[in-house]
């Protein structure tokens, strides 16, 4: 333990205080690094990249110390302020940098930093940073979607272990993962939310089967994960027994802020902009009006995003109001995807790229990516239910 701490503090001793840089210098630093190091052929990937494809880039960022921009430096992150984080994301988007399987960076990492034991932090966080462990999230089940708390995968105590049985589904990139964090029922006698625990499992544990599911875009981005008498040590319990729902809700906060980032919308906006230039639409006032409206929807999304990120940085808990960020982010993205299909007119149904005035336009990827955006992480309808009940005090 002491050794690890020393290593960490030694490495932090060498890290840069990014927040001390002025915004332009920081932007240029990030931009130059992306331009010089991110592989040109992988810019603007159409689908989620698989681990085999993006591994080298993940390791490049890891060695540079940039793999976890939002984590505190003491845990190997860059410790970026919200403003700097936004710049980092903007530059990623500008250069079309692909998203790695990043559940470790964006979800379980921040969660362990907040709720994990010191042992869990030391066991898992460095391996996320180093790209040794790839995480996936096991929440949804065939009969527990919007009503997540009704989940039935159970974990029964047995000596120093839990024995897990059940099935998870819509598990993104589970086929590339080495670990899963999951919600399992540990008490069937109490109210459904009060009998759930938050567990970690290594995919090498016997009894786990992963089966990819093909989506309508033809890609295998999510999976089913089956658990058959899977034995995990009690040390893999995060937080207390039966405290999983509260922790999951906190993680949903992290998730909603992550899913609420302007990233996807900024990406879609630049695709629309590119297509509109190729199609000569910037001379069309009807188009320009709609484009500008969406451009401002994205700009104001960024303002809303910064406000919630600030709250996190101050160490305050995210309230149920963060749901509005997820709704606005996903629905703005969806409106942009619609516009792309609309402006390509008769080519709006072509699978693969179309070529207009020498410029390749990918019409349908944004359309397809926008479909799950309003479903996963709590559908737009569920988010509105949460906002109505918990923020507006409108009770059903």
């Amino acid at each position, binding site marked *: 333990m002491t050794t690890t701490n020393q290593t960490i503090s030694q490495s932090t001793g060498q890290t840069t205080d990014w927040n001390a840089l002025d915004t332009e210098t920081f932007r240029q630093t990030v931009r130059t690094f992306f331009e010089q190091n991110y592989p040109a052929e992988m810019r603007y990937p159409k689908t989620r990249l698989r681990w085999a494809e993006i591994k080298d880039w993940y390791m490049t960022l890891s060695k540079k110390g940039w793999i976890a921009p939002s984590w505190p430096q003491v845990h190997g992150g860059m410790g970026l302020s919200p403003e700097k984080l936004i710049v980092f994301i903007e530059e990623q988007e500008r250069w079309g940098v692909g998203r790695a399987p990043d559940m470790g960076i964006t979800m379980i990492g921040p969660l362990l930093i907040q709720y994990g034991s010191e042992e869990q932090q030391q066991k898992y966080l460095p391996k996320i940073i180093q790209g040794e462990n790839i995480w996936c999230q096991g929440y949804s089940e065939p009969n527990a979607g919007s009503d997540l708390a009704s989940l039935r995968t159970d974990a029964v105590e047995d000596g120093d272990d839990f024995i897990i049985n059940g099935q998870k589904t819509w598990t993104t990139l589970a086929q590339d993962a080495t670990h899963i964090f999951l919600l399992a029922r540990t008490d069937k006698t109490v109210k459904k939310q009060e009998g759930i625990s938050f567990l970690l499992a290594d995919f090498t544990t016997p009894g786990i089967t992963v089966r990819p599911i093909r989506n309508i875009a033809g890609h295998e981005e999510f999976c089913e994960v089956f658990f058959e008498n899977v034995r995990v040590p009690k040390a893999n319990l995060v937080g207390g027994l039966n405290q999983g729902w509260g922790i999951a809700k906190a993680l949903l906060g992290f998730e909603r802020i992550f899913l609420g980032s302007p990233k996807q919308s900024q990406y879609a906006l630049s695709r629309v902009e590119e297509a509109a230039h190729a199609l000569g639409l910037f001379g069309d006032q009807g188009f320009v009006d709609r484009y500008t409206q969406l*451009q401002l929807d994205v700009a104001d999304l960024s303002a809303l995003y910064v406000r919630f990120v600030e709250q996190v940085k101050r160490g305050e808990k995210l309230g149920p109001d963060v749901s509005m960020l997820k709704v606005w982010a996903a629905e703005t993205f969806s409106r942009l995807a619609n516009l792309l299909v609309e402006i390509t007119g008769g080519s709006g149904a072509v699978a693969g790229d179309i070529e207009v005035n020498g410029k390749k336009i990918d019409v349908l990827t944004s359309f397809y990516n926008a479909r799950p955006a309003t479903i996963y992480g709590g559908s737009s309808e569920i988010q509105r239910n949460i906002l109505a009940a918990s923020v507006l005090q*409108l009770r059903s």
Partner: protein
Amino acid sequence: MNSDYLDTERQDNIRMLAESAQTFATKASPLTRARGLRGSASGFDRSFWGKLAEQGWTGLLIPEAFAGYGQGFGEMAAVVSALATQVAPEPVVPALVFASRAIEHTGNGDLQQQLLASIVAGELIPGVAWQEELAGLQVNLLASAVVAAPTNSGIQLTGEKHHVRPGADCDGFIVTAKQGNGLSLWWVPANATGVKVQSVALADGTSEASVRFDGVMLDGSQCLAQGDAATVAFTRAYDEALVMTGVELLALQQAMLNMTLEYLRTRVQFGKPIGSFQALQHRAVDLLIQQELTSSVLSQALVMLDGADSNAFERSAMASRVKARASDAGLLLARESIQLHGAIGFTDEYDLGLYVQRALVLSAWLGNAQMHRRRYANLTQMNTASV
């Protein structure tokens, strides 16, 4: 409003000012006062203006060098918001932000000194006469048809301006005029020979004016700025007024949403509060989202206006973003609040209408949402082209 970017001490001061302004406004300006003044001769109450001066609010934004209190936009927003929540009809943003700032940004020492001192004292209510288009989305910010031209007997001001607030009982105008190929800013007292003020009734019971200048003779001492200096001063004041109008629109949005939520929680139909129905809940949430988008972009804009590290382009783009979001969201809240109330929301007796009608006025004033989206598009295109 969210003020995360400010230091704690300033945040505390602003919070305290907001509380005392709200206490004052609730007591001194109940909704019955706003209701009673609708359609009156000037549409507002000059004696209430005196109370604003007593509070020190007529000089809040004006630098100490000009006898004001030298506070920032964060502080001014607290006052503006409190008065807007009570639908107070006094022309606070037109006179104390738009006109005052235009005067402050110019360099005519004597006139500046004299006008600002009178404004601080609550004795002078000025307006800005800048807009030449009566209707439509093509709005030229700088004067084109109103001209300040030399004649044998001196400089003469000719032409007509529209949408000037306040539209009655305004003591004088800062007039934008074309002079040669550039812009000039003039101070023209309302009672000057050749000035004709035609009041136009507005939806909220206040008024705006179309002001004709029929060969008004101008003295050099009335000139506030010329050329680039005039353009810079006007544009800056205009952008500041846009943001502060956004503050008013946000206050109206919040008031309308609160009223609507209260109604949804208490109005019973089919044996339950109507707010228990999911169809209505989701519509209410969409209003919340628009309100919070307005609030988020506004808090960034206020920090930008109070800070020193933005340039003119950034301020203009941000101000247009604010006005576009705040106007659209204001009108959405207005329409949806009526719908969620049902017929009662459409009655004159119910207070919702006061907010709805003020939102209509402020959404249209200084350029509506669509006009500001176009301005934003032009600004950002110009910016991209110049990089």
